[in-house]
């Protein structure tokens, strides 16, 4: 990972003068700029997503001020956006995207910076990738003896088995004298109250 980012930086240093405004540029006679980017839904095909679901993905500027949709190749653009700091969100079912902070400089026309707001990662190209996939349902654990035993009923049976088969064994192993002593002790103390068993009171 480290190495890769170093490579990117080296690449940027080399080509920083050549790197065009891949993000944006002034458009037409308007006073605004165009924000153009690309949303990558990796693994969308492997998960068996139909193109229908992809076509329902939206890109939202400034919390709903403008909404655009993804093209078939995943590209999107906002036109006539004024200079300033903006926020882009991607809504795609099944994926979690970080909102992106976009700075359009007014002094240096066309210069646009982008950074993810969740982890402050600076984007050199407006390629948005999901941070993670979202699973909306709990997954049913496959059947196992453990899960059955963990259920209240399983515990009930387990405890009973324990008592039935282990307790006599324990009693047998116990020294009869020790047992007698313990019984006497119990008698001397009286009935153990709940407060005595509480950890807070004992200390």
């Amino acid at each position, binding site marked *: 990972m480290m190495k890769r980012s170093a490579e990117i930086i080296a690449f940027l240093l080399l080509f920083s003068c050549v790197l065009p405004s891949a993000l944006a540029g002034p*458009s*037409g*006679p*308007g006073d605004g700029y*165009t924000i153009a980017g690309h949303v990558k839904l990796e693994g969308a095909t492997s998960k068996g997503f139909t*193109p*229908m679901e*992809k*076509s*329902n993905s*939206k890109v*939202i500027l*400034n*919390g*709903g*001020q*403008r*909404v*655009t*949709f993804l*093209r*078939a190749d995943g590209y999107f*653009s906002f*036109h*006539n956006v004024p200079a*300033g*700091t*903006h*926020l882009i*969100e991607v*809504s*795609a*079912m*099944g994926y*979690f995207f*970080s*909102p992106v*902070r976009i700075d359009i400089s007014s002094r240096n026309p066309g210069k646009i910076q982008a950074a993810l*707001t*969740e982890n402050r990662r600076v984007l050199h190209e407006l390629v948005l990738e999901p941070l993670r996939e*979202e*699973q*909306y*349902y*709990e*997954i*049913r654990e496959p*059947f196992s003896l453990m899960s*059955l035993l963990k*259920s209240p*009923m399983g515990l*009930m*049976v387990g405890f*009973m*088995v324990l008592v*039935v088969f282990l307790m006599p064994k324990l009693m047998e192993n116990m020294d009869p004298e020790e047992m007698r002593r313990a019984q006497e002790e119990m008698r001397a103390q009286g009935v153990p109250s709940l407060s005595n068993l509480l*950890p*807070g009171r*004992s*200390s």
Partner: protein
Amino acid sequence: MAMAVRVCLGFLIVLLYSNFSTALYEDQVGLADWHQKYIGKVKQAVFPTQKSGRRRVVVSTEENVIASLDLRRGDIFWRHVLGKDDHVDQIDIALGKYFITLSSEGSILRAWNLPDGQMMWESAFYVSTPSKSLLYVPANINLGKENWFLVFSGGWLHAVSSIDGEIVWKKEFAIDSLEIKQVFQPPESDIIYAVGFVGSSQFSVCELSSKSGEVLKHNTASFPGGFCGEASLVSSDMLVALDATRSALIAISFQSGIINFHQTYISDLVQDFSGMAALLPVKFTGIFAMKTVSSIYLVRVKGVSELEVLEKFNHPASVSDALTLSEEQQAFGIVQHVETKIDFRVKLDKDLRNGVLKETIEMDPQRGHVQKVFISNYVRTDKSHGFRALIVMEDHSLSLVQQGVVVWSREDGLASIIDSTTSELPVEKEGVSVAEVEHNLFEWLKGHALKLKGTLLLASPDEIAAIQAMRLKNSERNKMTRDHNGFRKLIIVLTRAGKLLALHTGDGRIIWSLFFPSLHRSEACEHPSALNIYQWQVPHHHAMHENPSVLVVGRCGPSHDALGFFSVVDSYTGKERNSLKLAHSIIQVIPLPLTDSTEQRLHLIIDANLQAHLYPRTRDSVNIFLREMSNIYRHSIEVGKDMIRGYSLQSGCNLDVADEYCFNTKELWSIVFPSESEKIATTATRKINEVVHTQAKVIADQDVMYKYVSRNILFVATVAPKAAGEIGSVTPEEAWLVAYLIDAVTGRILHRVTHHGAQGPIHAVVSENWVVYHYFNLRAHRYEMSVIEIYDRSRADNKDVWKLVLGKHNLTSPVSSYSRPDVMVKSQSYFFTHSVKAMAVTATAKGITSKQLLIGTIGDQVLALDKRFLDPRRNVTLTQSEKEEGIIPLTDSLPIIPQAYVTHALQVEGLRGIVTIPARLESTTLVFSYGVDIFFTRIAPSRTYDSLTEDFSYALLLITIVALVAAIFATWILSEKKELREKWR
């Protein structure tokens, strides 16, 4: 040792609580929830003519939805909800496979793939002056050649390539202040004609080259009478326009560059014409449609000076666009009301006297009048033309009519719900078995054995399907009677069209509907519109034989001082019980926590003159009200003036006629925000029916904190006037947000906090003694959620947990708003990832269950977030006792757990509101969220601790019991044997 136990205990508690989500398994979808998809009132519809798209229709709606519908059943193939300001102006179909939309006042042109709704391209135009936009898609488009669409918007004419949306050329007309009304290109010609008006009195024709946009010819002629701006193209060289007074028609011919005017007064053309006329935007050759106050006229243009009225239709009626059947044959449809039925006729433009088709269709009277009609044709087996019509009704519903019957209807008014309330269902009567739940014991056992197999994941796919079907079919949840847990209710919703609908919470079906405008339309009340619904009568003890009813409050016109009307509707039958025309306007309705002897809730209506009127108008209610009058206060929030005022009530009104039901209001206090630095952005109050279980909160170390629980708490958030706009419009230095907690009785500011560098949009919820609000932090450039909890310190010395536990505590000491409150405030802020569209808090019957916030995110999902994440006492390093209490260690942002989305894998498109309704079962809240779609589910914020879940496996319990009994017997026998052996020894 004790330390270790404590650690263990703390860990156990954390472990227990760490499973916050009320998550769902995939096979539980649809058991407790339902989701309905809508599109809204259809504005435009186009029928694809290509073979592949013949069974569909593409529409654009007033909710900014574009959708493709199945013509056979009315289902949605695909649908997109555009941004809230992205209104669709024009739609068309090009090349048989692209759906073209022009939106945002003609500044965005998009092409969508017709079969699956994938966006193909998008292009934006610069719009300098807002104007009506035009989209022209050439009809004779060839597939192989590159073709251009013409778009006129904001003073510019653009030619756009149909392949990738590139702008081929553009021409500015704004310089000449020419507003183009029609653009067309005669077939097989390279010349584009653009006709329009310059100012109010000049008519202009432009001929442009279709290749480059160069102006070839430009002719202008002025007409002294002036134009109103409406025009209808009747042929390739003639136009009909209305003059400035809308009382005369001007036929304009512009053949080969010569412009001729001819004026005809409408009164000469039609009898008894008065008022103003309007041209309908329908496209026929040689004919135009004109609308007057009472009727629609079809007028044929024979020449410049010769107009002839072909037909007259009395209102309410609607005329469809022309449908081209063949080269020279066009057809159009007319829909007209004949008493309770509607008359659908199709005519050919060649033979207007005799229609091709005449059908009379029975229509539900609860749908109001016809608003729009779209027709399409199909070829019957005998090669003749058949027609079907898509009819948009006044209640926003959409119906398809074919061969004299309504094939399907969509209740699309539900896409614009403005208010909702709930009603209980009738109590199940004894002796009347509503459904035979389980047939016999064998069936029951078989069902449970199958379910057990399912839980053990041993079932085959077929069996899983059978289990799923069995669960969904469960007749229990769709019964029309009250259930023990309070899950079955009626949700009564009011739509923007003025329709009241009752939905069953079991499956979302419509039980009844009532359309208000048709009920209340009269001479005095021309445009009735319903505003809100309230609970009117909820029988508990006294009036048990009565059905519950809801109150619908409406207004006769769009302005605030229009007279109001009242309507009381029976919740079970949907029949109007009584209605009342009010003699005053309605500004605010205050439901009072008082009921009269028949359990009718008392309501105060504030009119435009700040006078309060009491309803119901009975002696009984006045007596009850007068007793409580000194305790009733109201406040008004004047957003425009940045002012909040508080009022008390006084007897007597300064009316001409003495009215004992009318009361005067007296201003008690006012808070004026400095208008140069603060502007009211949001206000929030507690829900009036919220129940608080305990006023005290036991914190670690057995200390007690008293919640400051007041019904009169008002949360107000103001922002800097500069920062009132969208995100990105201001720098952090210019923006701030001030949050206030105000006592609405005295006007005392209990707490005030400033967030520097923050701006709206703000969403807030107030519940118990806390408020949570969501806003944008410009410095971090992230959304933030803050919580303020307010505690009463005046009773702080009065703390003894044991007294509290034993109920000996004196909590009944009167709390008055006038006693000076000694409050303590705790607050904290957290980052939140998403934009928020709506926010609500869960509500339960007794208020014991812990709360969850329901957050409608920008992705149109509803996220349930535990209130404990928004606890101001969260800290980085927690003490042992705080850990035991279950306080979560501090994190800078709130977690988003995908399993905590109550909407799971669904979206409530266009989400606008979330409503929570307590069920009778304490652990459970019913959640109803609405937008373009509606979604209902029930959630248990602390899991269903008071009942067994639906997939509780009785079979497993049975097996366990059997196993235990068997084990007892086995051990008994064993011990007997052992004893015997011992005795023998």
